[in-house]
């Protein structure tokens, strides 16, 4: 790239860097403040908000853990794992059927499944509550598992389908010549070839499930079925005067997904970009 080091250019670069770095501070400082507050006492918290914690003890974390966060975390992990497995399998099945099997009314089914992308969960809220009450699944683990799976199938199928469509036809023909049935072809050949997109959708589903609030709040009330986002708000209302414990809970909820993003960002970015940009 040809660059001309003019005076105006240098000034412009300076301004740009000042802006970019100021934005880094705006993003990082609140997060840092949250982590630091998790180590403070209540008195410190209401003192100088810029001060560092006097004593770096994990007492607030232990308190948060014992006051329900361990349970919320367990539920979050269970819902996340089960709904991710369910969503990815059902979606990959559907994507395989839609792209590589001669199915009657293929276009109609594709439209129906992907059309779900256009519908907002909020719109279905009232009837869903009635439905789950009459099934006896209201306020249960199953409600979240079913909803997180059903509402994410359109998006997940969309991403996997877009990837499978580009896999060469010869792959299926070779599998057929080997006498492999459809099931074997899917399981042994196509699915392994889709590993990059599967990684992306798994990570995206984890991010979604871990952070989801609307369904979690409306469909669960007792402890034992509450996930972290809802659990944090109950921690806040129950122990409202002990804010450092709430901060500790927030950090516990945030750390796993931030780490997940830092390690899996390549796949998350690629999955999102392919999905939205394709």
């Amino acid at each position, binding site marked *: 790239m*040809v660059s001309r080091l003019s005076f105006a250019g240098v000034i412009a670069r300076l301004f*740009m860097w000042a802006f*970019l770095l100021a934005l880094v501070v705006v*993003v*990082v*400082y*609140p*997060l840092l*403040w*949250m982590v630091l507050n998790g180590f403070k006492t209540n008195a410190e918290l*209401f003192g100088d*908000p*810029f001060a560092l914690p006097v004593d770096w003890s994990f007492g607030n974390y232990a308190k948060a853990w014992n006051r329900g966060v361990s349970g919320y975390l367990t539920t979050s992990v269970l819902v996340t794992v089960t709904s991710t497995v369910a969503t990815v399998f*059902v*979606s990959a099945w559907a994507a*395989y*059927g*839609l792209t590589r*099997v001669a*199915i*009657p009314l293929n276009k109609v089914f594709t439209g*129906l*499944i992907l059309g*779900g*992308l*256009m*519908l*907002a969960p*909020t*719109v*279905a*809220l*009232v*009837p869903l*509550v*009635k439905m789950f009450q009459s099934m006896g699944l209201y306020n249960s683990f199953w409600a979240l598992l*079913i*909803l997180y799976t*059903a*509402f994410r*199938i359109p998006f997940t199928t969309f991403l996997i389908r877009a990837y499978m469509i580009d896999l060469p036809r010869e792959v299926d023909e070779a599998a057929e010549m080997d006498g492999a049935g*459809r099931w074997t072809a899917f399981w042994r050949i196509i699915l392994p070839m889709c590993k990059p997109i599967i990684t992306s959708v798994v990570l995206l589903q984890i991010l979604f499930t871990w952070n989801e*609030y609307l369904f979690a*709040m409306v469909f669960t009330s007792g402890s034992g079925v509450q996930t972290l*986002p*809802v659990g*944090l*708000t109950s921690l*806040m209302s129950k122990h409202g005067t002990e804010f450092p414990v709430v901060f500790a809970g*927030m950090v516990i909820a*945030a750390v796993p997904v*931030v780490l997940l*993003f*830092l390690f899996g*960002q390549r796949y998350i*970015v690629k999955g*999102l*970009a392919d999905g*939205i*940009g394709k």
Partner: protein
Amino acid sequence: MRAIIRLAWVVPALVLVGVFVYLPLVQNFGFSTLEWDIYSGSRQYVGLDNYRKLLDDPVFWSSLGNNLLYAAISVAVQVFGALVLAALIESVRSERWRRGLRVVYFIPSAISLTVAGLLFYFLYEPNLGVLNHALDAAGLGHLAQAWLGQESTAMLAVIAMSQWQGFGYSTLLFAVAIQRIPSEIYGAAAIDGTGPVRRFFSVTLPLVREMTGLMTMVTISGAFQVFNEVMVMTGGGPDNSTQVLGTWLYRSGFVRNDFGYAAAIATVLFVLTLAVALAQLWVTSRRRVEW
């Protein structure tokens, strides 16, 4: 017969989406014509009464206004702001810095809206929050106020948090879109002696317009579905000034026990989000950017 067996591939997805996504949507229309007390179980057909009630409900209109404000600010910040930011980041020469900036800006999007909302609830808090203290320290103490506690600032304070949480996500996507522009095009522009500002308007902007269109639609659709951050930060208060359609629906149905009315609000949300989605389909179906 074999064709029917082959359907087994799509049946699980179809059943789940059909029963839990489409069916409730259809039921919702029916529900919105009922006067329905969930405790006594009494249901009565009232036709379009719930919709008439909507028109006369000032909170419905202020909620819709808040959603629109949300959409306008989010499009300005998370679409156009993010696009400029992405172009700035991609103009940095060091690959390590580019990646580092993208990652740092994205972190708020990885943490949940609940955590971010609670965090900003505390930041705005007059006694222990850093915002008022920072203003004080900067000699702007007269600007310090109860950001979430008064009608004049509460909605904007919630929206500001949402921008903080979401801008990195769209910046990341724009950065990827800019990276996909072949470098020869930029090279040619540089040889022509085009300055960076001209280059942004004459090369970058036209070539990422597809992503811009999509992000605009995604952002508007998201702005109509806002729920989480409002519930966590203000619960719709003070005096319903931060209610949005989603929270007003929730409050009407599950707190004020008026299921039919909540269903009517849901219908409005459905129409709005569907309109945006159809616009999005229209944008994608137009000719793609080609190079």
